[in-house]
């Protein structure tokens, strides 16, 4: 799955198409509250762009852009955004994830604060879903072991 091949057509097409996929994913995340889509769907598209990169450019180049550690950090960071916005609403004296109270911090009317709050939560969900999708595919394609780890194990034996 992760062997590098000299497919110039596939590599060129992927290089051209990946930025458009990512911009489209950002559009889906941003327009989540008045068109189909949202955090999860946008995150899946964003993850698909990274998966396409891993498929076409091989494991070594993909690890430079998005390593296993970065994927873990991103997934925790997105969860932190989500729960942080929820806890902020709790601290301000309303229910968990009740964005109306955010209007006192953002200095806008409550309706606008609700719109901005759900946007922040969707960004968090999108980052988490992207990282977890990539992490799952990474684990499947390496069979749970990273090639250089295997070499180290062989040397120890």
């Amino acid at each position, binding site marked *: 799955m992760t*062997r590098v091949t000299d497919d110039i057509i596939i590599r060129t097409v992927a290089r051209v198409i990946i930025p458009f996929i990512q911009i489209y994913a950002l559009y889906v995340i941003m327009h989540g509250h008045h068109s189909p889509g949202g955090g999860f*769907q946008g995150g899946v*598209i964003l993850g*698909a762009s990274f*998966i396409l990169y891993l*498929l076409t450019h091989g494991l070594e180049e993909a690890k430079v852009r998005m390593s296993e550690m970065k994927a873990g950090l991103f997934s925790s960071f997105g969860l932190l955004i989500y729960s942080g916005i929820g806890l902020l609403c709790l601290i301000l004296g309303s229910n968990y994830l009740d964005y109306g109270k955010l209007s006192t911090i953002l200095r806008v009317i409550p309706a606008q604060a609700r719109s901005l709050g759900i946007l922040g939560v969707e960004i968090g969900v999108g980052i988490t879903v992207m990282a977890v999708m990539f992490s799952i595919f990474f684990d499947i394609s390496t069979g749970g072991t990273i090639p250089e780890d295997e070499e180290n194990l062989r040397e120890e034996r």
Partner: protein
Amino acid sequence: MNNFFLCLGMGLFTLVLLCLYRGVLGPGVLNRIAGICAIGTKTLVILLLMGFIYNRVEMFIDISMVYALLNFIATITAAKYLEIKGEV
């Protein structure tokens, strides 16, 4: 005009069922891949027809674009699998 789109969608749906038969039971990997790719293309057109029926094409065009994109990635993955396996 709605009836026309509806009939077109139902016709495509029968074709999807035929492709599904080939995708599930088809002998060999190549038949399955061809069947699944055909299903993806037909689903895209059915989604657009649904958009015409409900008068919200601009909403359904988003979904069908995602579908086309994931179909493209699925095709590349299947081709990669066949290349590494080295046989059909």
